[in-house]
């Protein structure tokens, strides 16, 4: 496309009072000779917006550069067909007029550099050609329990074909073996019947749902929109568009809990065994078949215990409360003890806890990991514990002991999906073996595009929540197939039609891209050449940052684009109180944070030129070299928090950037530069108040170091 650039400079919102717009216009006119250049007091108003639109409609302009407010606002006004028109928003309001003193030379120079960078970015942008292939919109649901059935039924109800794969001969999962469920309805007093059969019947009756029982997955090859799922035992290969993994959970192995004599004393059982016994009709002692008159529950049996499961499974308290009702229902004279660390009854379950208390269940607070269970003298078993509310040991005799064991994901030692991915057959896990992508912002997301988790495979939860999880994951799967069909990215860059394009002739098979992609986008051939699967891509451009040969780029994002923007910055030859800093910042958290600084009218030094990036993980080291060799005095990188509680939208982008920066020491040494000239800060949007101080400190440090010796060359 032959670019016809229009530069539209807004003077509203205090911009005109702050910045010398004649000088800014001159920069556009003299350095870039745009087809059009207009100054107007309100491009967001009817008249101003009309001006741009008529230029575009008349064909005078196909590349719109709006120098005005943040690109995060007024997105409904500045919107053009992305397939025919390039739009670039230059933020001279929040990032200049609102955070710098009006009328100053430095303020003008800041605005000029932002305009230069914006026009260069527009010049380096190509119209996208979306990646569109023949795709299948069938949804594969793995697991026929509470979550999976709900996902299958909801996806079918929305009109999608569903393949439901269940490894057992019958569907229903754990729920089918359950006796009752704890209360889910006000006033949260009465146990409820298990209703999983309704979901099973619904799935069986729906002709859009094809059910495979006693079936497992041999392998899954391909990518969203074109997954090829091969079932075992001659179940054939089926093409699907997206996958919901609802494989459920398994109880923690109680034989590891030697202290509780599980496996040696037959009347010590798990909560799962208790439930199945209640379902069968009668609670008895396994040793002799007699009915117990005293039953003790041990909570956190192996849970919240560094030697076993460090986490809380969230459901065991409610399960034991429920089972204590079974015991009392069997014989109202029966006694129940619950040994607990803390009773955790989220949602409205506190009401049920109160009911169980009122009905006379005895609660003993103790460090349950220290409980010793042995043979009793008057009853079958003895339980010794320190009653923390009394400060003394107690000895309770019981006929039956129930260990409330925690939940572990079904994928713990079986990948289940058997993905044919270069990065391995399983979904990457986050913590404790649960495959999750981001536990705060993005439920159901995994680190494999088009594959979503629902129910206890992703997090311990009650069956009622697993059901709504199934709905949520089904909706994510539907979004995935629909966006993929249009060649668009899914969350978090939903709708992005660009995708990575590789100039493979120059590839050295270093495998950095195939290893570092957080989403396993690349497979490899036997030589190690990357085999991109564009529909797996989330468009974070971490591969672009990783590539030492710089052969990966997007139509609207490239190494050359950002490098050219950096080179476009006007660096004064004289250092005298005019250092120049490049700020490479994450567009997801740091850029909005910087907007917040402007909105709050906080002031900061005028030396930094901020460039928003898709992810800090997309920083290519050549940009650092470009900047330093151009005479830029320092480089600030703002990325999301990393570590266990990471906040990166792309899992480990900021962490990768940090790793790369530590490796840049070598480059700096070669350039005879100090490593302090580069600083990486972890930042969330609500850290915005720190930004002026970080700039102040960094500037002071640069002053100590003195000007970049390459300045002026």
């Amino acid at each position, binding site marked *: 496309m032959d670019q016809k650039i229009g530069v539209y400079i807004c003077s509203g919102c205090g911009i005109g009072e702050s910045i010398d717009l004649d000088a800014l216009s001159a920069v556009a006119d003299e350095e870039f000779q745009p087809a059009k250049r207009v100054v107007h007091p309100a491009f967001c108003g009817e008249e101003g917006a009309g001006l741009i639109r008529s230029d575009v409609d008349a064909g005078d302009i196909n590349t719109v550069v709006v120098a005005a407010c943040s690109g995060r606002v007024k997105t409904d006004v500045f919107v053009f067909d992305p397939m025919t028109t390039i739009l670039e928003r230059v933020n001279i309001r929040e990032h200049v007029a609102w955070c710098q003193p009006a009328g100053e030379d430095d303020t003008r120079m800041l605005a000029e550099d932002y305009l230069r960078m914006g026009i260069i970015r527009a010049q380096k942008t190509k119209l996208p050609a979306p990646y569109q292939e023949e795709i299948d919109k069938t949804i594969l649901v793995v697991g026929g329990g509470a979550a999976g059935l709900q996902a299958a039924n909801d996806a079918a109800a929305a009109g999608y074909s569903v393949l439901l794969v269940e490894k057992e001969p019958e569907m229903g999962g754990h729920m089918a073996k359950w006796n009752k469920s704890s209360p889910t309805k006000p006033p949260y007093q009465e146990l409820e019947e298990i209703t999983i059969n309704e979901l099973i019947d619904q799935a069986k009756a729906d002709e859009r749902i094809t059910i495979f029982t006693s079936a497992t997955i041999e392998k899954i090859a391909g990518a969203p929109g074109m997954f090829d799922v091969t079932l075992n035992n001659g179940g054939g290969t089926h093409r699907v568009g997206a996958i919901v993994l609802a494989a459920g959970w398994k109880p923690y192995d109680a034989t590891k809990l030697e202290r509780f004599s599980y496996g040696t004393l037959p009347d010590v059982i798990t909560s799962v065994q208790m439930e199945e016994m209640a379902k069968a009709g009668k609670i008895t002692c396994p040793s002799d078949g007699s009915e117990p008159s005293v039953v003790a529950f041990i909570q956190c049996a192996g849970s919240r215990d560094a030697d076993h499961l460090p986490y809380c499974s969230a459901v065991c308290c409610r399960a034991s409360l429920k089972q204590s009702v079974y015991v009392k229902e069997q014989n109202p004279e029966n006694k129940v*003890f619950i040994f607990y660390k803390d009773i955790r009854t989220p949602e409205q379950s506190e009401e049920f806890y109160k009911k169980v208390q009122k009905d006379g269940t*005895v*609660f003993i607070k103790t460090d349950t990991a220290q409980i010793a269970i042995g043979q009793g003298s008057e009853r079958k078993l003895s339980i010794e514990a320190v009653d923390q509310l009394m400060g003394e040991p107690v*000895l309770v005799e019981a006929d039956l002991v129930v260990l409330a064991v925690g939940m572990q994901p079904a994928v713990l030692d079986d990948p289940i999906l058997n993905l044919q991915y270069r990065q391995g057959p399983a979904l990457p896990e986050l913590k404790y073996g649960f495959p999750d992508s981001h536990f705060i912002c993005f439920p159901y997301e995994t680190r494999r595009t088009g594959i979503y988790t629902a129910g206890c495979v992703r997090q311990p939860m009650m069956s009622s929540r697993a059901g709504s999880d199934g709905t949520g994951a089904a909706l994510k799967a539907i979004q995935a197939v629909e966006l993929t069909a249009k060649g668009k990215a899914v969350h978090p860059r939903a709708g992005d039609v660009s995708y990575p394009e590789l100039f493979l002739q120059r590839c050295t098979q270093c495998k950095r891209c195939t290893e570092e992609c957080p989403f396993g986008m690349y497979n490899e051939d036997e030589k190690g050449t990357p085999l991109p699967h564009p529909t797996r891509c989330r468009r974070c451009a971490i591969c672009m940052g990783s590539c030492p040969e710089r052969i990966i780029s997007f139509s609207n994002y490239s190494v050359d684009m950002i490098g050219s923007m950096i080179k476009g910055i006007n660096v004064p030859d004289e250092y005298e109180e005019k250092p120049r800093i490049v700020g490479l910042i994450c567009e997801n958290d740091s850029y909005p944070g910087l907007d917040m600084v402007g909105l709050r009218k906080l002031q900061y030094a005028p030396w930094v030129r901020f460039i928003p990036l898709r992810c800090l993980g997309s920083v290519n080291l050549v940009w650092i070299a470009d900047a330093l060799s151009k005479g830029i005095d320092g480089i600030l990188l703002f990325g999301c928090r990393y570590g266990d509680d990471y906040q990166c939208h792309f899992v480990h982008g900021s962490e990768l950037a940090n790793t790369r920066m530590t490796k840049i020491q070598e480059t700096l040494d070669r350039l005879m530069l100090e490593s302090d000239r580069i600083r990486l800060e972890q930042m969330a949007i609500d850290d915005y108040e720190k930004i002026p101080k970080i700039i102040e400190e960094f500037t002071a440090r640069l002053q100590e170091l003195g000007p970049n010796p390459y300045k002026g060359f």
Partner: protein
Amino acid sequence: MEARIPFLEVSDAIIYSGAETLYWCMQCGLCTGTCPYRLVPGPASEEFNIRLVQHLGQLGLEGFESENCLFACTTCRACVDVCPRGVEIINNVVGMRRMLAEVGTIPPSLKTIAGSLHSQGNPWSGPRDQRTAWIKDVEIPTFSEQTEYFLFVCCTSCFDARSQNIARSVAKALTAAGISFGIIGNEESCCGETIRKVGDEQLFQNLAQANIQLYNGKGVKKIIVTSPHCLYTFKNEYPEFGGEWEVFHYSEILASALSEGKLKLSGSNAGAVTFHDPCYLGRHTKLYDPPRELLRNLPGAELMELARTKNKSVCCQGGGGRVWMETAAGERFAELRIHEAVASGAKTLVTACPYCITMLEDSLKVLGKQDELAVKELSELVAERT
């Protein structure tokens, strides 16, 4: 430490004895933190942990029976008002005491009280035929079918020399207000409120039945009481046994007479006064305004509030049977109130309960603060100015 063995049959017996909400307790300990025993030193402060007492009860374990533990509770209700689980803590205490009372293991000092109640119908070992000795030279009408209110005088004010003045003052003030009232006389028996709290349920029911029979036989419809304890049991506990009357604390009657202009107050300046809310008038019955209305209208009165007032009032330690038990000087709640009253700047500490008067006057003397502060019953200040 030897492990203790829970004995749930005992727990069942406690619940059967009235501790119906024993298992509602989730052991958060807010009750213990709120308990006024945290404000004083001494063995009861160290031993009496109401949270733990209830836990022992839940497990059917021993260890709460002593005078300084289960019997320390004054039933002041401070804990009940803050309990997040709505546990009827006083009922739980009473249930546990009742279970002990049934096997005769209550503190020895309380046995004498029970004996006197059995034989004389009052806890103070006063001869039944001396119940109306408080009248002395005052003229007190006898209740008849034409009388509007039956005036029930608390046993304490019938027999205790100091407290008798309260009875006379109430009668004088009621007369001045033109209220139609009368007493029945020596046939009246103790209301039984406090012995019930101690755990002697049978004795309470005997007393209640005797009173109900007597009052109903006389045609009583409305009762004025001199003590908030009698007020509480007549209002809340007697209906179950057939005693259904309108029951008023004298301050309610006098306050409305005052507002209607029937009661006129004149005479000496009352000066700076402050009010100690009795637990059974305040937290138990929620009557905070009538006594204050009367105080504000005393000639020359300036009402100051204590630091802990109304529903935050600190118990005098006379309830729940403690009035009949010994608490060492330096460990008494009433001492806290005397200090607080002195700090408030008031010259007179007023209250409206015979137990409170006993406890507060005692501590006033022990602390030697008689020169700085006087303790008075509300009715006395009113009667002096009619």
